[in-house]
Every structure is written in C-alpha cells, then in structure tokens.
C-alpha cells in the first residue's frame, strides 16, 4: 500500500497527463481517428514490434547515427585536446568552433544531398557535422582543466607527445568528453530522424512520414513512443559505460 502511494506521488505528473489524455478520448471531443486512446496506442505499439518494417528501418537509422557519431568522436576529441595544448591550433580552430556553434549546420543538408546522394552518406555527414561541435567544445574545456602538474611530471619523465595524449590528456578529459557525448548523441538521433523525414526512402524518420501519410495516427504515436524509448535507452547506455569505465 505504501509502495503504491509512493509510486503515485513520484509519477503524479505522468499519471495526470495520462488521465487527461484518456479523459479527452472518453469525452470524444476529437475524432478517435486523430486522437486515439492510450490503450489503442499501446496495442498498436506491441503489434508494431512484431513487424519487420519497424526493425529494418530502425536498423538503418541506428547505423547512420552510430557512424556519424563515432566519426565525430574520432575527429573531434583529438581536435579538442590539441586546441587546449597549442595556442596556434587554438587560434586556428577557435573561430570555427565558437562562431560556427550557433549556425544551424543542418540547413546545409540539401547541399550534402547533392554532394553525397540521397543514401546514407548525406545523412551521416550531417550527423557528423552536428555532433562534432559539442564534442570538440566540451573536450576543449575539459582538457584545459587537466591538472598541469600531471602534464609537467609526464614531460619530466620523458613521455612523448603521443604518450602524453593517451596517458594523461585523454583519461583526464574523459569525464567532460562524456558530457559532450551526452549532448551530442541525442542531437545525432534528432538529426537522423529529421534528415530522413526531409528526403529518404528508408529509416525511422521516413517510416514516420509514411505512416502519417496513411493517416494512421495511432501508429505514428506508437513509433514516437518507440523512438523515445530508443533515445532513453541510448542515454542510459552512455551513462552505464561512463560509470563502468570512467570510474575515477
């Protein structure tokens, strides 16, 4: 009894939203077609999980997100660390990453479609471009705050630049790199869905637009639930990896 009460208090807002939604449905203020009940959405959601349409499209989307994100990490982390170490590189890169930050890079997507075609290339490149900014910026600030004593002692003990990068800067910056990841990964998901919605013939964004064109609102909502569960899971996964491997 106490557990139930605790649960209700904790999730009060969500319960209220669900009740409100269901109340609207029961009052039939809007046509059922456009405003399906929660039970129906859940049912459609379970049905959808059994279809291959969902999984093949999701697979394509996951592939694009991961490749774009990993590329951004591979390119972005060294840039961020080198920027913090050399004032020349800092001067060179600072305008790109400071002044370029507020520019919506996704607006370039139509150009990338021309350059890389309608397939995965243009999407991956857009995801890469959007993800690299938060990764570089948080790596840069993280590496700036690496204790100088560690760097000096490393240098004194004759560590090469390469060794310094791998043994001192990278581990020291890891927490803020993960902060950058946590900002970048949801952006990657959004950009993947977005670019697929604009122009594509596969991927979860395309699937969403396709379902919406067939006017099945409950299916659209079920896919939205699926995508949000995916985004939530991805974030949890990132947190798990961080707690597991960046334990210091």
């Amino acid at each position, binding site marked *: 009894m106490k557990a139930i009460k605790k649960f209700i208090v904790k999730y009060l*807002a969500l319960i209220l939203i669900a009740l409100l939604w269901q109340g609207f449905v029961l009052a039939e203020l809007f046509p059922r077609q456009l405003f399906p009940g929660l039970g129906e959405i859940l049912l459609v959601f379970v049905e959808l999980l059994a279809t291959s349409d969902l999984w093949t499209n999701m697979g394509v989307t996951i592939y694009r997100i991961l490749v774009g994100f990993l590329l951004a990490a591979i390119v972005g982390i060294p840039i961020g660390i080198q920027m913090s170490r050399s004032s020349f590189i800092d001067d060179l890169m600072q305008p790109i990453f400071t002044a370029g*930050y507020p*520019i*919506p890079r996704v*607006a*370039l997507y*139509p150009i990338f479609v021309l350059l890389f075609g309608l397939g995965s290339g243009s999407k991956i490149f857009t995801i890469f471009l959007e993800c690299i900014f938060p990764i570089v910026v948080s790596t840069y600030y993280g590496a700036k705050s690496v204790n100088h004593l560690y760097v000096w002692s490393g240098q004194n003990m004759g560590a090469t630049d390469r060794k310094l990068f791998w043994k001192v800067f990278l581990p020291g910056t890891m927490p803020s790199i993960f902060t950058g990841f946590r900002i970048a990964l949801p952006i990657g998901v959004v950009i993947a869905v977005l670019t697929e*919605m604009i122009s594509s013939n596969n991927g979860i964004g395309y699937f969403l637009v396709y379902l919406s064109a067939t006017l099945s609102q409950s299916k659209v909502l079920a896919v*939205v639930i699926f995508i*949000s569960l995916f985004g939530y899971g991805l974030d949890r996964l990132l947190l798990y990896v961080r707690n597991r491997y960046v334990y210091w």
Partner: protein
Amino acid sequence: MPSSFKKSRFIVISLVELLLFLSLWQLLSMTDWFPTYVSSPAVVLGIISEFFMTGEVFPHIGISLYRSIVGFLLVVLFGTGLGILAGFFQPIGRFFDPVVSFFNPIPKIALLPVFLVWFGVTDTTRILIIFTSAFFPCFIATLDGVRGINKLYLWSAENMGASKFKMLYRVVLPAALPKIFDGWRVALALTFVMMFSSEMIGSSTGKGLGFMILNADAYGRTDIVLAAVIVIAALGFLFDRLLIGLRGRVLWWQNR
C-alpha cells in the same frame, strides 16, 4: 586591455579564415574538379545581394523569424519560469522530475507528423514544435542553476526577513542567471534548427526560409539554396551575438 586585443585578434583570424575558405571554394568551382552544380561563392553572393535589392527575401525572413522568435519567447517564459519554480519549491520540482525524464529523450521532431494532423499546416504547428524542442534544455538549465545556488544566500535572505517572492526576485533569479543564459543560448540555436526543419518537412504555406530552400532545391537551383542557407546561418549567428551582448549587459559583474 589584453582582452580587447584578444577579441580583435579573434575577429581578424576569423575573417582571414573566411576569406581563405571563400577563395578556395571559388578556385575549386573555377576548375573542373568540383561538380558544376555547386555554384561558386561569387554567384551565391550575387544572388544574396539580389535578394536584398529586390526585397523578395524579406517576407520569408520575416515569417521565419516570427516563428522562431515567438517559439523562443514562449520557451523563455515557460521554461525559465517553471524552472525557477521547480528549483525553488521542492514539491513542484518533484512533480516535474518524471515529466522531464519521460519527455526529454523524445526527439521532438518526431512529433511533427502528429502536430500536423492535429493543427494542420499552420504556424501553430511550427511554433509548437519549436517550443517543445527548445523547452527542455532551457528548463533543465534553469533548474540546475537554481538548485546550485549557494545555500548561504538563501539562509541570509530568510534571516533578514525576506518574503518568498522577494527571495525569488532578489536572490534566486540573479544567482541562477548565468546558467539560465546558457540554457537560453542552447534553446535559441535549437529554435533556428527547428524553424528550418519544420518549414522543410511540413509541406509549407509558401513562406519562410526553409520553404525557400525546399522550393529552390526542387528546381535544382543550388545557388538559391546556398544563398538561403547563408541567410539562415547569418541570422543564427546574429541572434546568438545579440543574446551574448544582452548577457554582457545584464551580467556585468560576471566578467566572462
């Protein structure tokens, strides 16, 4: 003043890089290596100046800015307001916590088809998408800012007999303002992304920069696409600078 020297050096380096980039692009488009459908910067700049001479771009800019600014102001109003309340009053904070953890991971752009069915191809749909996308970063940043306030400030204000309202206005708001500004900056950038994407996806009303890109793209006019992209980028940059300028004015004690 070393900081102003640093600032002007930053501007000089940025300009040099921009010029280098433009001339490289121009060179590449004059050789045959580059695909011919990617127009040269000279052509694109010509289109942009033509945009402004004829004034045909102003209605598009106007409607796009209207959508993003209204969305942004709503975010500032609700995101910051609710964030402060949720951070200051514990029960309200506990009430909103599950909402954040449930709705925050949804890529809000996925809701666009849903909103399109409910509200049609209208500004309401677009502003709602902008609002839902930018709300959470602003709300979370504000909440963080308020919760991170030095408790000593609150205690001393309480001791000196400040009312709850006065504490909110005099202590909590100024102390959380740096974080709040960070949230606004993220929200503003998101506003522009969502403005562009909602105009490109939700088959448009025929106005707006995103629509302009979509339309030009359909006719294969890469030069117009690039020109519109540059206009969006310039607007995004400009509004970010405006926000930073405002921050410098309001947070004069924070020498950042």
